[in-house]
Every structure is written in C-alpha cells, then in structure tokens.
C-alpha cells in the first residue's frame, strides 16, 4: 500500500515549544486566567477545593499544556490549536456552563478554518509549514 512517509504526521518525538514566543504568551494568559478565576471565587473554602480543581485548575492546566504543544504543519490546524487554547483558557470562568463550551468546540474549529483563508489569518499565523 503506497502512502507518503510521515503520513498523517511527522515521525519525530513531540517536544514542547518552550522557547516559542506565542506559546509563552498563551501560557501566561492561561496562568493569569487561573489566578483571576481564583480571585473571583474568593473567599475560598477547603470544602470547595475539588470544585476549584475541576472548574479552574483542570481547564487552566489543559490550556497551559496546549499552549506549549508542538505547532502543527498545516495553517488551519495551527489556528485551531491557538483558538482552542484560548477557548480552554476562557473555560476557567465558565463554572457549571463549561458543558456548553464543550458543545461549542466545533464552532471554534469552524472559525479556525474560516481564518485560514483571509489575509488576516495568514499574516498572524503564517503560511503552511
């Protein structure tokens, strides 16, 4: 069966993009959002630590990890990765409505496809790698 080497992705190990400026910015945004969300929930009670872990720390951590995930080759995937990172960051403020944010993920992905075409998207995210 003939298929290109490295299809559908590169074969190299996944290495976090620690030194990438945009990744650092997104990660800092995630940290700031977690701090802000914690501040908004003050005063804290030890009995609520599980809710905070679930609704604030979990989405914040995922956003942090996503921010440093390796950059995809395809432009729309790079945009999708960044938008999902921002969306996950915003989820720290969603509380119980986080379910609705999950349902809306396809809309976020659709926006990333739309942004992949215009000049704006290409100027911000660059062209195909």
């Amino acid at each position, binding site marked *: 069966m003939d298929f290109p080497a490295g299809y559908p992705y590169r*074969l190299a190990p996944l290495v976090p993009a620690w030194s990438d400026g945009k990744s650092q910015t997104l990660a800092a945004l995630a940290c700031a959002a977690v701090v802000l969300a914690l501040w908004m929930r003050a005063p804290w009670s030890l*009995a609520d630590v599980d809710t905070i872990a679930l609704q604030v720390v*979990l989405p914040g951590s995922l956003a942090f990890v996503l921010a440093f995930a390796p950059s995809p080759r395809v432009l729309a995937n790079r945009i999708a990765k960044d938008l999902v990172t921002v969306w996950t960051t915003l989820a720290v403020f969603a509380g119980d409505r986080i379910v609705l944010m999950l349902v809306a993920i396809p809309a976020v992905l659709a926006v990333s496809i739309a942004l992949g075409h215009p000049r704006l998207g290409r100027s911000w995210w660059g062209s195909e790698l």
Partner: protein
Amino acid sequence: MVGKRAVIALTPAELLAIERAALLLGPLALAAVMVIMLRPNPREATAAMVAFLWQLPALYLLHLLSVSQGWWSFPDARNELSGLPIDVWIGWAIWWGPVAMLATRLISPVVIVIAAVTLDVVSMPLLTPLVQVHDGWWMGEAAAVMICLAPALTAAVLTRDDRLPAVRAVFHVLGWGGYLVLLIPAAVLSFEGGGLADLWRLPTSPLDVALALAASLLLFVGIAATVEFATIGQGTPIPFDPPKRVVTTGPYAFVANPMQIISALVMLLFAGYARSWGLALIAVSFAMFDAIYARWYNTGHIAHAMPEAWQRFSGEVPEWSFRWRPFVEGEAEVAISRDGPARWVWDRLWRRACAGMTRGVHVRQREAHDGLRLRYRRPNAGIDEKGMLAAARLLEHGPLPLAVLGWVMRFPPIGAVLQVVSGLAVCWWRRESSGQSRRRVDE
C-alpha cells in the same frame, strides 16, 4: 504525627474535597510529567488519546454496573453524572488511559495491569468518605479490568504499533458507540434535568418505533463504514490514525462522509426519541464539525497525501448526499464454482434479476486456489473476499438498498451465520446430486 493531626482536624466535607481534587490533579500532573520526560512520538500520543477516550464511556458503564450490582457507591452528590463524581472519573480515565499507555514505554502492559489492580485493592477501602465499598466489590474490580483497563491498553498498544486494524476498528465501533448511545445522551439529558431513561425506554408510539429502526439501520451503515476503513484502508476513523489509502468501497462508494452524516443523523433521531432539545443541539454541533472541520481535514490531509486517488474519488462521490448506484473503480473478478448453489443462484437469479450489476464484473470458473465456492476480487481496491462475504460484495454493485443488504450480510455475527447456512446448503446439494447420480446408475 503533625500530618495525621491535620487530617483528623479536617471536617469530612474538607477531607472529601481534598480526596477528589487529589484524584483529579494527581493523574493529570503525572501524565504531564511523563509527556515531558518520555517525549512520545505522535503515534504514541495518539495511542494515549485512544486509551483516554476509551475510558470515559467504559468507566461510566462500569459505574452503572456498580450501581446495579451494589459493588461500591459515591455518597457525595456534587459535580457528578448519575452519581459518578466527574473529577474522580476524569482522573481515573487519565490514570488508566494516558498514564498507563505511556508507562508501557517503561514496563510491560501485564505488569501495569497487575500494579493497577494491586493499587486499587489496597486504596479503595481507604478512600472513605469518597467511596464506600460493599460486599463483593472485588467483582467490580474484575469488571473494571475487563471493561476498562485491559481493552484501553490493548487498543492503545495496537494503535502505537499500527497493528491489527480490524481489531482496532472493533474498539472504535464499541468506543464511539459508547459515546453515541450512552455517554453523550446521559450527560445532555442530565444537564436538562432528565436522565438516560428518557432515551433507553421501550417505544410507546409508531413514531418511536420508526425512529428506533432508522437509528439502528444507520448504525449498521456506520459500522460497515468503520470496517471498510480497517479492512481496506488499514486505518481507523480517528483523524490521527487514518486509513493508508483513499477508501472508495462499501458505504464510501455511495457517499464520501458516511460516518459523519450518520453520527449527526443518529443523534438527531435520538433527540426526537428522547424529546430533547439538548441532543438536537449536539446533532447540530456534530453536523457543524463534519461539514466544516472534518471536510477541511479530508481535503487538507488526505488530498495532499494521495492527490490522484482523492481527485478521482471526490469527482465521482458526493460529500453529503448518497449516490443511487455505486462508484466502482476498476474491474471486479468473480470466481464461481462450476456447479452447486452459488452457480445456481448466479445463473438462475443474479444474471436475470440484476443484469445491470454484472457490468464491470469479469466472471471465471473457480479453481482450487480460490478456496470457497465463490470468490470476489478487486485488486485495485484491495478487496479479496470469499463465500458469503463475496456475495455481499457483489450486492455492493447494485443500487443503494441492495448494497445496504450487503453491509448487513458482512456484519460479522450475521456473516458467520450466513456462511454456516451456505455450508449446509452445499452439503444438502451434494447429497441430493449424489443421490440423483446413484438413481441414474440404478436405472
């Protein structure tokens, strides 16, 4: 000593909250450390994701079983789904998913299973007030290994090593089925204030029966499409572990995106059956994902990787509507026995009733190396089937309803039964024909 006093000083509510937070954040932190330390390649990362995605519906199913069998219970009623604490659930899925998968780099999967079970046996009784174990809870532990841990590790290891796509397809059918018929409806209906019983109930009207039948038929087509990805494309429906060729056969000969259409339609039918606006919203969400992102993914990845095959396929097969007759690329070869039931059906029924379906089909006499009495080959599509599976492939040359019949015939349990029936028919025919020969000699 100070630590013990501090634990004693905690109220039960505080202790419970700390346990729940630790069971979520502990596995999450461990998984993050393992990713950084082990630097998995994309295939290993995909395998870890497969293991996690398996665990969510599997652990939910285990919880439902646990409730019905009384193995254990979670008394706390905050942040839960059907009584299963969401934080514990996610943490457990990470622990038995990505953490277990990444640990296979260091130790054997068997050792991982033994270690996980040992840890559970030791820790579960100590985790009060979070979980209360009841008599016979070790039965639940055995069920957990069989339903959750072992299948997740198996699917993950096979994905990592890119082995046995047909077995991986079975896991994907079961896993996605778990999301479609169990997890997503449970989450949405609970969010709306109802429960899984709104969907999992007996039909009460002709409309209910029609919706249930339509959903079942669509699920059959979805399974056929998944099997086609595995057997012909040597891949799976998940975008990170795709087929290694453009699959143009089975349901893909009629529509380019059968699985996406079916997922959205089935969810819409479920919404009608459960009278749920939330499930209707999920169906819209599926449709949006399929129409925009999945469509782009196909053209952005498959079309780039295999441009000629994709161009031929996409020029002939519509993306969102069904062709009445299939797109058949290249010639098919049918080897059929000189006599017997297969030959009788071919001569007396097939060529008369289905004249249009024999176009592009080259028929020859069966030879010893062909095996069973009927063989169907389409080398350019990678198809080589025998017996009833070959008959089912022939039906795929016909209009859509006949092709659907072929997909039902290829569904493994049904296909196996039909093969046995056809074997019995051959035995009967042999006995009859030898009896006739004897009578002729006697006369």
